């Protein structure tokens, strides 16, 4: 078997060197065409009629008037009379028309009578949830009561982190065009190789009839794996419109209402321990919702799973609201926020530096040595020793500065992936893979791996992805992409090169096994005088190209990729205690992703994760109205997201280290997006002297923590 191992760290020519993303110019110049940019001749536009009520049944529905509206080509009903609706925004009927305005007018002409039923949308008041709260059953380890009694210090707190929406910049949707029995499908998707099969199942047609193309997509964060009812109804609207292509993308309000949420989490937590910082007990009563089907249970205590005495109670609450979808590190932000807020409160209680409390207890984690190295590095980068102070000891003046820290953990092993590499007689190289670039640099990374493996440069590789005609590669979720695609690319390139060596060896009068590809040449190992250029070597192929594949098998990744990344982030904030406005000074992120292929796009991934979580820490929350049962801020106005001036400085340290490198490639998308919220929350507590229990750390929540709900405490 050929040697697929990564080249030794010090011998890499392309991998490990910062490379600009290949599609940077296309994107920044607007040349990159996203699925929502696809326009086809004769295309019609799909618009959805959604429920204005959070809980109701459909008494009657009449589409007669809509069908007669100008430009209408199809009207479909998916919630006929008798259907029970469980959240506002749920789909009822669908219209296709020659223009989007015509489709919207027709949707408004559909007559629906509703039987409105009681709803429940505000899960924070658990006592009001009644039978909608489903307890998971108590989990106990050790003797918590005894440990609480024996402790030198016990912290007790309430912590709340709300439902967020994915808010994909490009909403969910697709363009679909039938060509006879065959279908052209342009989805905004995280799953180029599998989404056609999913749609085929919904439509009960062979998957082989569906051709998927997707060069770019505008954000998914875990919410864009399936084809969804939006894909199926788009296809049916097209059929009903006599085969006209249909463009159906959710509008902004619908996107923020039904296209996925991150579950909330609320908890009352006690942490107990000794004066020296040793944590001895954890007790939590938590609840959460992810919509009608309830919510996921955050894995708490997070990372410090070895706390000897633990008692956990959790309840999942069903609400009449749009459902949860995977959200960039599902359950981890919530678990990280709950755990590291509670541990920081314990550290404050015993007046110890939280860094030392964390280090003291690393034995309770699965990666003590790695975390210690990362914590110390982050501590140094953040000037922790100079800037950290006891909680609230921030001096006079109305601007208070504080630091906070939190850790993360993630898997990130490579998914199943196949890659084909073609070497053509003219010397050109094509790389084909049914993967997708969610904007993270996948294109660039596979080109770098191929170039490294073939002794070429990145521009020598023509990367072809985003098409389900290419070899199958897994969906991009769980930070599994980079491990999968880099490993399959490596293997395909090594296999193709082996074939090329067989063709070239006679001309060089050498054993094929003694050849190597370096610097655009094929040469005899140890004897560079016996060489020929890549181009000359490829001419030896005559008229036939080499076409070889390589596969990543997650059961046997052969050391090319692995799982298990740790990370540490420190937030440095300034809080105006007169206004409650929190400003980011800096986030320091020490990130581990094993072997780093492209430091530049890896750093960008961390920037993205940190920025996303700065929004989550300071601004984002889905606001539900109890009376209406509707999302009040399903827009980009009051669903607040940070702009560039709100971000502060982000300093990334990729933990490039021989110990990490030898583990192989590990995904980074999710681990970078876990610990920022907890770190910022801790930094704010450190700055202002009290815990703000509720995320986001918006002025109302910060001022309420400082001065009371009615501003009854004195304002210094």
């Amino acid at each position, binding site marked *: 078997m050929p040697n697929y191992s990564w080249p030794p760290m010090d011998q890499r020519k392309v991998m490990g060197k910062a490379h600009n993303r290949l599609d940077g110019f296309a994107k920044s110049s607007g040349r990159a065409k996203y699925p929502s940019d696809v326009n086809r001749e004769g295309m019609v536009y799909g618009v959805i009629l959604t429920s204005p009520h959070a809980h109701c049944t459909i008494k009657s529905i009449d589409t007669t008037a809509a069908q007669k509206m100008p430009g209408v080509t199809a009207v479909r009903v998916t919630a006929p009379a008798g259907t029970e609706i469980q959240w506002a925004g749920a789909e009822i009927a669908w219209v296709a028309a020659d223009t989007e305005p015509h489709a919207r007018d027709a949707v408004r002409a559909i007559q629906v009578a509703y039987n409105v039923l009681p709803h429940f949308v505000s899960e924070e008041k658990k006592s009001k949830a009644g039978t909608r709260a489903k307890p998971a059953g108590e989990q106990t380890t050790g003797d918590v009561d005894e440990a609480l009694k024996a402790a030198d210090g016990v912290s007790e707190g309430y912590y709340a982190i709300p439902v967020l929406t994915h808010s994909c910049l490009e909403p969910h949707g697709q363009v679909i065009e039938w060509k006879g029995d065959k279908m052209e499908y342009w989805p905004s998707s995280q799953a180029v190789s599998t989404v056609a099969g999913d749609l085929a199942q919904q439509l009960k047609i062979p998957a082989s009839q569906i051709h998927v193309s997707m060069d770019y997509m505008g954000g998914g964060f875990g919410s864009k794996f399936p084809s969804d009812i939006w894909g199926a109804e788009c296809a049916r609207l097209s059929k009903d419109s006599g085969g006209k292509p249909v463009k159906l993308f959710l509008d902004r309000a619908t996107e923020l209402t039904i296209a996925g949420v991150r579950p909330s989490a609320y908890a009352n937590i006690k942490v107990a321990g000794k004066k020296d910082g040793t944590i001895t007990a954890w007790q939590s009563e938590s609840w959460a919702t992810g919509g009608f089907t309830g919510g996921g249970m955050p894995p708490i205590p997070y990372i410090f799973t070895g706390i000897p005495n633990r008692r956990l109670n959790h309840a999942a609450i069903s609400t009449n609201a749009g459902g949860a979808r995977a959200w960039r590190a599902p359950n981890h932000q919530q678990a990280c926020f709950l755990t590291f807020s509670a541990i920081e409160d314990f550290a404050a209680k015993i007046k110890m530096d939280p860094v030392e409390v964390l280090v003291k207890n690393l034995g309770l984690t699965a990666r003590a040595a790695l975390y210690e190295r990362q914590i110390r590095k982050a501590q140094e980068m953040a000037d922790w020793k100079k800037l950290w102070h006891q909680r609230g000891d921030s001096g006079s003046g109305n601007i208070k500065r504080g630091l906070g820290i939190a850790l993360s953990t993630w898997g990130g092993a490579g998914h199943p992936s196949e890659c084909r590499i073609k070497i053509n007689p003219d010397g050109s190289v094509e790389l084909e893979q049914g993967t997708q670039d969610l904007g993270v640099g996948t294109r660039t990374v596979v080109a770098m791996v191929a170039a490294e493996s073939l002794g070429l440069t990145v521009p020598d590789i023509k990367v072809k992805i985003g098409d389900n005609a290419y070899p199958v590669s897994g969906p991009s979720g769980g930070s599994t992409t980079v491990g999968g695609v880099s490993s399959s690319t490596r293997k395909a390139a090594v296999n193709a090169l082996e074939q090329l060596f067989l063709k070239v060896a006679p001309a060089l009068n050498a054993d094929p096994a003694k050849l190597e590809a370096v610097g655009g040449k094929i040469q005899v190992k140890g004897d560079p005088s016996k060489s020929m250029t890549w181009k000359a070597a490829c001419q030896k192929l005559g008229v036939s190209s080499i076409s070889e594949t390589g596969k990543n098998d997650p059961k046997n990744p052969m050391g090319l990729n692995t799982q298990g990344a740790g990370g540490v982030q420190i937030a440095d904030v300034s809080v105006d205690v007169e*206004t409650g406005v929190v400003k980011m000074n800096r986030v320091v992120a020490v990130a581990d992703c094993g072997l780093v292929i492209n430091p530049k796009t890896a750093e960008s991934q961390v920037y993205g994760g940190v920025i996303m979580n700065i929004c989550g820490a300071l601004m984002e929350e889905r606001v539900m109205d109890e009376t209406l049962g509707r999302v009040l801020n399903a827009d980009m106005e*009051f669903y607040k997201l940070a702009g560039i001036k709100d971000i502060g400085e982000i300093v990334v340290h990729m933990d490039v280290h021989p110990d990490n490198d030898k583990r192989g490639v590990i995904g980074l998308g999710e681990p970078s997006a876990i610990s920022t919220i907890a770190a910022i929350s801790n930094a704010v507590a450190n700055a202002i002297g009290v815990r703000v229990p509720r995320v986001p750390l918006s*002025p109302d929540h910060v*001022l309420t923590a400082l001065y009371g709900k009615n501003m009854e405490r004195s304002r210094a």
Partner: protein
Amino acid sequence: MNNFEYINATTVQEATAALGSSWSDAVVLAGGTDLLSLMKDYVMSPKRLVNIKNIKELGTISKAGTGLRIGAAVTFDQLASNPLVRQGYPSLAQAVMGVTSPQIRNMGTVGGDLCQRPRCWYYRLGHGVLGMKDGKSLVAEGENKYHAIFPSGAAHFVSASSLGPALVAMGAKLKLVSASGSREVDAAKFFIAPQSNEAREIALLPNEILTEVLLAAAGKNATYEVRQKDALDWPLATASVHLKMKGTIVESANIVLGHVGPTPYHAAGAERALVGKTITAETAMAAGEAAVAGAKPLSQNAYKIQLARVAVKRALLEAAGVKA
């Protein structure tokens, strides 16, 4: 959005001739940054739009005696970069620079700012300016953290105008023109707290166009805005102050709060607290304290009392050039 007729007026006469007797007949279009989204959401569906962006005289800023005349179609960007404004009326420039989107500053106009509809989420979902359902206020029992702490009757929304408080504080007059004539109203009287869901929150009539803003020479003035984000965001509370000074002593003060009530809120108590005093951190804070006396917060917005108080303090210090 419903279909509508489009009139591209090039003179005020043409524009007023195209207006109707009700808001559903015709609405004036300038920058469109608010109106178009209202129409797309079917909150407003006028039969006709009258574009006034091509009426040249409405797009200029000029000296008027010792004061200033600002055309209603002047953009935020024009206003903020005009030397006369920056020099004599920094309060206005500061107010519009709070609109932290260059796109909106390039499109949004002075008249549009004054005539824009409330951002109240219940209003935007079609429950009227009072935010009513089944005869009850959705605001009072609902999500009201961005709503008024100085409500007026049933009106709990906050006036969205950035320029309103500054213009009220400086005693500006607004010129309203109809086909049959014109009138001038005080900026303070232009804003109205409606008591029915159908009423408008400004004194403009459906057959009128706001054509210009007239300002007398101003004393020291400033606007301070408390906003969570540096990126595009609505203020949580603002204060505009206008001081007539004798040396370092305040002879008279006009203090007007924004985003705390359905109209710019005239803080008379704060004004009384300042007269005869020098502006210091202490007197400014005392004025802030006086400004919020009588606030009636809702279930979620008591924090805005603190923000209003601080906005007054900081606007006063800014206007007086005092470093806190």
